[in-house]
């Protein structure tokens, strides 16, 4: 599957989203709660724009010197007794992870939340070995129980479900008999997962940021599940996107602080975990064996292009939480594990324009995403850039649109043509207008009038130009 989560066509997915009242209520409610919390928590930091500038600088510097920091990271991981593997493709990553799991003869694997493992379909790869792979993030666990319902949000994967639906899933799949009280359900999940934590031979985690200077990885969670997954199993595998790295702990401090605030409106998440190397003599817990898998899977192709800033992303989902399109269609409409504005930017880069051609257009370019992004990715500009590439390079623009745009540019750069056109247009549209409104227009106007009226085009003495001209002549 990779990043793709649905075989439906774009507008079919959108229709399903729009018609899902439960999901829409859950999403709009969550958006408002999360925006409110985000604003409260960033105002406590002082000048947020200064922080954003700093974060942008850190991310840009790291990407410009990615080769250096990855090498430093690799050296330090090995020094600390760990293993490092650079995977160019999803297949290479999965083959390596499978080989580690097979060498341990592991049957049960416990995971903490990780988008990159979803991106490479790691669970399916391990299941093909006959392993049981258990998601321990509560949201991910709910989706896994619910017949692998895809995530609809990168931070809150089960955002599209309400508590009643979750109770039903628990009842159907695990014989849950209690109420839909979130506390009671969380307690149940805790009981269920505890056994898995204790039995798993391998723990697999994602990585919020790797720290190059010490060869460490850091994880932020509110559930503590990543700590369980990294301390109990004897073998730990951490999978990271190749761009998720900071030079030192100092930059980590800045970015984690901004991540928690941007993602969930917290000063800090309940758990911020830093892990360096394997268990040493005298340590109470920790893995005996550690593997860090650094995944490229299309990222290096983005480096050095006009889309490089997309790699600054720290996966906080602030852009998703303010997106008015996401609000109405929900995460599944994007058809990818990466929804929202960042998804609309990333999917055509990680995949191709054939598969993801609609996403860059699924935006009004309102700029809400760009405004909240803590690392200053110019998201709406990157969406325009995708459109430009599709028109100018990828040959994806419809012929009629190309023709229309050529005509538009010709008219808008030659006043005589523009004036003839604007004088003729009202009479062309005349037959469609009634009481000063057009309710059922022709051609492309029909798409507009499908849901709204259009004012009758101004003509003759009603026009500004006529008024201004008469005035010049002393007419008014």
């Amino acid at each position: 599957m990779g990043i793709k989560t649905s075989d439906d066509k774009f507008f079919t997915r959108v229709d399903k989203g729009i018609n899902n009242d439960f999901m829409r209520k859950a999403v709009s409610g969550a958006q408002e709660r999360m925006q409110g919390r985000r604003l409260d928590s960033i105002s406590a930091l002082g000048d947020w724009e200064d922080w954003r500038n700093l974060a942008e600088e850190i991310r840009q510097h790291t990407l410009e010197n990615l080769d250096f920091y990855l090498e430093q990271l690799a050296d330090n991981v090995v020094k600390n007794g760990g293993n490092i593997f650079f995977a160019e493709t999803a297949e290479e990553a999965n083959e390596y992870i499978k080989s580690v799991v097979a060498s341990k003869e592991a049957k049960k694997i416990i995971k903490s939340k990780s988008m990159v493992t979803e991106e490479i379909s790691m669970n399916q790869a391990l299941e093909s070995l006959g392993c049981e792979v258990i998601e321990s993030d509560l949201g991910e666990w709910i989706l896994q129980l619910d017949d692998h319902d895809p995530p609809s949000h990168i931070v809150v994967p089960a955002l599209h479900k309400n508590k009643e639906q979750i109770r039903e899933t628990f009842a159907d799949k695990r014989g849950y008999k209690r109420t839909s009280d979130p506390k009671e359900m969380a307690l149940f999940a805790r009981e269920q997962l505890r056994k898995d934590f204790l039995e798993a031979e391998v723990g697999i985690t994602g990585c919020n940021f790797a720290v190059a200077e010490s060869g460490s990885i850091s994880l932020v969670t509110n559930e503590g599940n990543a700590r369980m997954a990294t301390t109990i199993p004897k073998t730990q595998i951490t999978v990271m996107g190749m761009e998720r790295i900071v030079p030192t702990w100092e930059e980590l401090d800045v970015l984690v602080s901004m991540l928690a605030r941007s993602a969930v409106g917290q000063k800090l998440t309940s758990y911020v975990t830093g892990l360096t190397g394997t268990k040493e003599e005298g340590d109470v817990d920790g893995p005996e064996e550690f593997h860090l898998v650094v995944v490229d899977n299309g990222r290096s192709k983005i480096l050095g292009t006009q889309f490089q800033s997309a790699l600054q992303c720290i996966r906080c989902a602030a852009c998703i939480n303010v997106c008015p399109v996401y609000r109405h269609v929900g995460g599944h409409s994007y058809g990818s594990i990466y929804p929202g504005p960042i998804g609309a930017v990333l999917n055509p880069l990680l995949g191709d324009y054939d598969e993801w051609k609609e996403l860059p257009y699924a935006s009004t370019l309102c700029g809400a995403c760009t405004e909240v992004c803590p690392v200053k990715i110019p998201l709406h500009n990157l969406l325009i850039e995708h459109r430009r590439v599709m028109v100018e390079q990828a040959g994806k623009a419809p012929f009629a649109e190309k023709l229309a745009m050529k005509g538009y540019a010709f008219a808008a750069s030659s006043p005589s043509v523009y004036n003839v056109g604007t004088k003729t247009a009202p009479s062309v549209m005349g037959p469609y207008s009634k009481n000063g409104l057009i309710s059922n227009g022709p051609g492309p106007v029909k798409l507009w009038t499908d849901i709204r009226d259009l004012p009758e085009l101004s003509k003759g003495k009603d026009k500004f130009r006529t008024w201004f001209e008469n005035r010049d002549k002393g007419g008014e």
Partner: protein
Amino acid sequence: MKVSLFLTCLADVVYPASVGKSTVEILERFGCEVDFPKKQTCCGQPAFNSGYHRETKEVAKHMINVFKDAEYVVSPSGSCTTMLHEYPHLFEDDPEWKQKAEQLKSKSYELTQFLVDVLKITDVGAKLNAKATYHTSCHMTRLLGVKEAPMTLLKSVEGLEFTELPNKEQCCGFGGTFSVKMVPISEQMVNEKVQHIEETDAEVLVGADLGCLMNIGGRINRQGKAIKVMHIAEVLNSK
């Protein structure tokens, strides 16, 4: 002070004289000498936002020439002014045109921005007895960065009873070609906007961008609701 009016294609082609006329009259009331370069057309945004940047450059060059001698360029649209400010990015590899584009950018203002920031006016002396709410258009607030000016001026309008629009910063679903390319999504967005407007009990919806107003107003008409839509220039020119 000499001001050249950039009317915008919507105020030119779609709407009757009122928006442009109000803009001219307000500016003149505050001592500006207003001219209207007749060769002006459109800012190029339909092509730019759709990814047709070669075509946008043709339009931009034309507009740069049209306004090359202007002292100030003032427009009754936050979005179209934002587009003029975008021109320098179009000519990154063409220093001569980039410099001309920068020049146009530096003298281009949205109407309320010009009144408040350049003319230093906070009260236009307008009068309108109505319950109103204001739609903050996205490009004007987020991209052009004009947030306070419209409210400053609206507050000075005598008789205007004002209620803030819930979720005011949320897009109305216009988005230029988005409104016809993504009709089902645009419909949901504009429905929510209309619902919020109704919650304020406003008789008049005021906005500073005809694109948004055409979208929201068109939906209001289709739904048969009795809410009047006015451009901010018309409100500020009411007596």
